[in-house]
């Protein structure tokens, strides 16, 4: 039963990719083209349906490890290979990426009608979706690393769809180089773990990490953790290797939707999946906290300035991924999963609907003065805190014990601050009464807290538990104060933003933010120097 289910989950993406390449036989919608598209969509839809069935049926959703192939390496007992790990975590992500993949494919079939190289594009699109799904199913680090690379290579083909556009080529190459950097980090981690533990099978590695650890084991886990952190940062567009993400708008809209909702997630998934290995990797986690906070802050500042819809969405992904990486760094892996899922749905929809004027333009109302803005923020903090505390109280969460996840407390604080930020515009736009705003935002805060706690109850068993930030030495203790303070500062700045802008203040910050703090430009120069575009391709 379980074996059959695992094979089904493996088979659907493989069949979808196969069908997508077989579809190249027909050009356009003629002949069997349309039917072939329907078959591909059917297979793509079947994957998330199967995953949801697994999540709902307790018998299917139990963790299951299915070894497929094993290559003996370096003698007896040392093996790596292909294996599937089916559990609630992989099923959750499979359901989301499968859903988004199916929607994006269906969208692209219509959207690219009449486009040159459309069939090839669709085939690579499905290949990308399928390799993400295989990545999610990987039960062996060798397979995971292989899929990790395949995703980026398939995506590269989508990014150079308009190869005659020089900007598209340069952006794709930027992404390509960052991905290879991530590959190096990934392979380093794989090599470190394999040489120490002699296996790449995930359950075996998790067992090893849980068991009594020697000094060598701890060191290997710590350095592998660092390498994994770097790999995740490259995949999830963390500052300073983020600038490929806002630059890759040079390919059709469905690619952006897929990339922002289904591909950048892979970094977060890697960390959540391997969280049992990270308990000893305190410095890696602290690095993630720093990178995540920096990325979230920079991303948010830049997002605020961008007047182009897709550009703002792309920078917002940078910022959101920063937040997600921060969650991982805090050890709040189930919160990170909730974030990945919610963000995936939100961003895929936002990109696909980015041509709807009424949804992307929000006329600016009068700017509230500093007193009113800060008052709004304060009220938001109060109503958010009350709601979150209420939820904690209701579910009996005490901050300790088996059902407590690290980082939840800190995260609850940040969550309230972030939500309070949304309170200011709702008050500034007028019309809405104080009570409605407080009620809605309190409700949202409660919902977020419930989702996070619920997610932890749901997938907690497969996650690792890492030390709280403040338990990780002096740096950790300092960050425990600095990170929420930075978020609070951002929230205050955000509340004052309309007023500041009306007053002509913070002009320097605005100008540099508008340009993404020049990191992308410098990266551009580097890419052009390393890999000069042919002048013939210049548009």
């Amino acid at each position: 039963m379980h074996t059959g289910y695992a094979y089904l989950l493996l088979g659907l993406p493989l069949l979808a990719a196969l069908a997508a390449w077989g579809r190249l036989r027909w050009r356009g919608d003629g002949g069997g083209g349309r039917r072939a598209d329907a078959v591909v969509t059917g297979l793509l839809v079947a994957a998330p349906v199967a995953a949801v069935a697994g999540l709902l049926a307790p018998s299917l959703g139990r963790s299951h490890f299915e070894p497929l192939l094993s290559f003996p390496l370096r003698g007896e007992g040392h093996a790596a290979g292909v294996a599937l790990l089916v559990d609630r975590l992989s099923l959750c992500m499979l359901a989301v990426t499968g859903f988004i993949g199916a929607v994006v494919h269906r969208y692209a079939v219509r959207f690219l009608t009449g486009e040159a190289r459309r069939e090839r594009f669709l085939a690579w699109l499905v290949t990308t979706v399928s390799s993400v799904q295989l990545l999610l199913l990987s039960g062996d680090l060798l397979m995971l690393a292989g899929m990790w690379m395949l995703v980026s290579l398939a995506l590269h083909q989508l990014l150079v769809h308009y190869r005659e556009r020089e900007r598209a080529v340069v952006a794709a190459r930027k992404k390509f180089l960052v991905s290879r950097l991530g590959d190096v980090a990934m392979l380093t981690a794989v090599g470190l773990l394999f040489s120490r533990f002699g296996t790449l099978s995930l359950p075996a590695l998790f067992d090893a990490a849980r068991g009594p650890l020697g000094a060598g084991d701890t060191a290997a886990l710590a350095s592998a953790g660092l390498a994994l952190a770097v790999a995740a940062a490259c995949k999830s567009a963390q500052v300073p290797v983020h600038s490929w993400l806002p630059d890759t708008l040079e390919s059709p809209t469905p690619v952006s939707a897929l990339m922002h909702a289904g591909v950048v997630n892979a970094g977060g998934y890697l960390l959540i999946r391997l969280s049992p290995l990270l308990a000893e990797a305190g410095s890696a986690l602290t690095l993630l906290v720093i990178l995540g906070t920096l990325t979230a802050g920079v991303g948010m500042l830049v997002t605020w300035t961008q007047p182009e819809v897709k550009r703002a969405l792309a920078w917002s992904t940078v910022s959101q991924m920063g937040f997600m990486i921060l969650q991982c760094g805090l050890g709040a892996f189930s919160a990170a999963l909730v974030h990945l899922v919610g963000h995936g749905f939100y961003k895929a929809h936002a990109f696909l609907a980015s041509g709807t004027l009424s949804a992307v333009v929000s006329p600016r109302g009068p700017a509230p003065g500093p007193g009113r803005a800060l008052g709004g923020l304060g009220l938001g903090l109060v109503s958010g805190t009350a709601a979150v505390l209420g939820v904690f109280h209701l579910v009996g969460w005490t901050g300790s014990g088996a059902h407590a996840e690290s980082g939840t407390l800190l995260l609850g604080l940040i969550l309230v601050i972030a939500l309070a930020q949304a309170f200011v515009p709702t008050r500034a736009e007028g019309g809405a009464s104080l009570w409605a705003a407080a009620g809605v935002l309190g409700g949202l805060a409660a919902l977020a807290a419930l989702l996070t706690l619920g997610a932890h109850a749901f997938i907690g068993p497969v996650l690792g538990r890492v030390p709280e930030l403040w338990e990780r030495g002096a740096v950790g203790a300092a960050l425990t104060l600095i990170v929420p303070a930075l978020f609070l500062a951002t929230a205050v700045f955000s509340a004052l933003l309309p007023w500041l802008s009306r007053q002509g203040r913070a002009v320097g910050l605005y100008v540099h933010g508008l340009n993404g703090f020049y990191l992308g430009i410098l990266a551009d120069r580097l890419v052009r120097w390393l890999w000069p575009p042919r002048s013939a391709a210049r548009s």
Partner: protein
Amino acid sequence: MASTLSESLAALLGLNRAVQTSMDPGVTPLGAPRPRTSTPAQGLSTEELPGSTPPTMRPDAIVRRVCLAVPPAWPLDSLVATHPFIGLDHLHPVDAHAVLERRLHAPVLPEPALWRPLFERGAFNAEDVRWAVEELRRRGPQHAVARGLEAEALLGLLAGTAPAHPFAPERVLSMAARLDEELGTAFAPAIVADLSKLLATRMDRGVARWAQPLGEDDPGLYTLWWRYACRSLNLEARGVKGFRRWVRALPSTWEAALDSLLPRTTLTGEALEDYLARLLGELQGWAGLLRGEAWSGDHDDPGAVPQLLTARLACDVAVRELLGGRAPGGVLLPQVPPREPPMGPSAQDGLSRFALQLAAEHGFVRRLLPTLAPARTGGVAVHLNLARASRPAVQAMFCIDVRSEPVRRHLEAVAADVETCGFAGFFGLPLAVARPGEENALAHCPVLLDPAHRVQVGEAPRGSWAADVKAVLGAVRRAAVSAFTTVETLGFAAAVPMLAETFGRAGTETSVEPPLDVSSLSSETRLALASKLVDVLPLARPWARIVLLCGHDSTLRNNPQAAALACGACAGHGGGTNARVAAALLNDAEVRAGLAQRGTPLPEDCVVVPACHDTATDEIRLLDVERIPASHREDVERLMDSLKQATAASRAARVAALPGVDAGEEPLEAARLRSRHWAETRPEWGLANNAAFVVAPRSRTRGRDLGGRCFLHDYRAELDADGSVLKLILTAPVVVATWINLQYSASTVAASVLGSGTKTLHNVVGGVGVLLGNEGDLAMGLSHQSVHDGTAPRHEPLRLQVFVEADRQRIHDIIKESPALGWLVNQEWIVLYALGPEGRDVHRYARGLWLREESDLRATLLM
């Protein structure tokens, strides 16, 4: 010389010179610039000659002229056609072609390959090509003959047997672009992207949460740029070291900066003009929007365009002064190739392109003319209108839009007692329509006019608890792009619309139109507007029992350029509102009494019914039906039945022309699906393939299939004693239609420069426009998908062929009096024909002459 030419022409061809006039002194033979002698209504003084620039011309005059050559553009919510060659329409297309190739690197006239499919399917033939060559040779031996324009060579190009034209036009390049060519850098696109970004922040209507703080004191575009450039490290990070210090040394006003910068380009006269036009051409999308801002006040006000030019020029001079040393030879200069002699290879290339243009149009007109001839049954058709036997049951008024023609044709076919007629779809009402939640009232009239009357549609939501929550959720959703927590919680909700939009079937939602409030119009205003309507609407009197006023709109989803498919006469908005207002005015008892007093009473039993034609689905919906009196209900229901049948017939034909529609698909389902699907890029073909404009009574075209390619404007010369109505038609709707025609052509022929590229890369910027991909200039014109089905263009770039049933002398007088029309006609941007009451009495206007088209017509009739 001109008159001898025309005389010899007439003698040579034995053509009737129906109207003997001395040639307009402004008309010179093809290829030479025409001095502007017309009234300075367009604001250019005679010293500002196009084409050639006197070396003594002052630089500020050159700057002004370059800036006025930028076509105005409009923001997305009122995206209507613009004249893409507005600064060049005093040149002949052949000359404009050479100028545009030099400056914008874009053609005006299509390359021969574009005509090949038309030729192959017989839309025009070898005879047409020969006719075109002859036609050009007739104009003056120094052109066609000396150029060796040979029909056989052109036919070879069409057949693809002759090698493609080896001609590559010489192009003007900025200094930054020169440096990029030499070093393989990307300074020019970087400068364009940087300026573009700044302009986007200035024009932003609320995409960015952080409103640009540099210009709160409204300092003018140049100062804005200066403030920005003093701080931004963008160009320095790209390698323009010392840029900020260089900018700080610039004068503080744009005029002074221009004075300081222009001499540093080392260019003067026409080279300077070409160079500046190139610089502005790199940013023509934004420049157009700036021009559009100033347009409604004064069509000759360049607005902030000169300031933009100053900023762009400053960047280019900065590249020269800061990086010039890296260029080979150590000196960097713009590339401005010397202009060709009048008969240079550019002109030759343009002339052969023009010959094919003429040939293709000749093929079209040759087929259309017999259709426009009155019915064979003698003069009956003509007189039908003058002395009608009976009053029709219904008079249905549609917009002149080419998409109305098929519906009208089918409506008349299914209901013989319905008379249709065509008029600009804003029904003569210059309205500003205010809607709740929108800051400004939107103009519902052509961009050539200013809206004068404000009406309100819909009510602001009341302050209920549910509305409160909705408002908060809306604000949170809009802020979601920059808030973490909301994404996690509200993000899940996005799965539902994604599922519905992607896999859902087309719904049949029937939206109830929001209440209309015309109380803002005083009773005098209402009577005045109604009187005007009664005077201008070309409905035969007495008006029928039911008068249907049918505006049009297009239901589209997720399409930022949707306004381009709505009613152009209503500034890119739905015409239904104008129809509703017109009906409300004309049905008003007080107004009726006033009209009777004025001597233009409407029949007591006449009820005006507003309607809206959804051009995406070809459905016609009657509006404000609850206001129809019970006495008329039954008749209106019959009309609705007829409309249903008529639209079903026109829809079936239209849907079949959409790409990817299976033969088995139900047309209404197919149309609705495409109109409401969020991934659809070709919901309808819009005005693609528009080619002709007929100004005549409907009897001239009734019962004829015009293929949805004709604008139809009703006109009865006998009701227009002083010619003022004709003048209005020729100078307003015809000019607007010409803009539409040229916009579609330019987007087809010069897609990469004058079209807005592929929709797959569209990135809405500031809510005002789209750009392609990451960055760069605002895209202008229509998208690739709007004019191309992926394998072939769906718009045949024919110039607008205008047929007017009116006295030739009167038409000629109007051309002479209206410079804007005069340029279009005399410089051959459109072709004008006068239709006489007799079938064969067709004359073509040719530079002050009326040439009888009899020979062509005969040729057709013999076929």
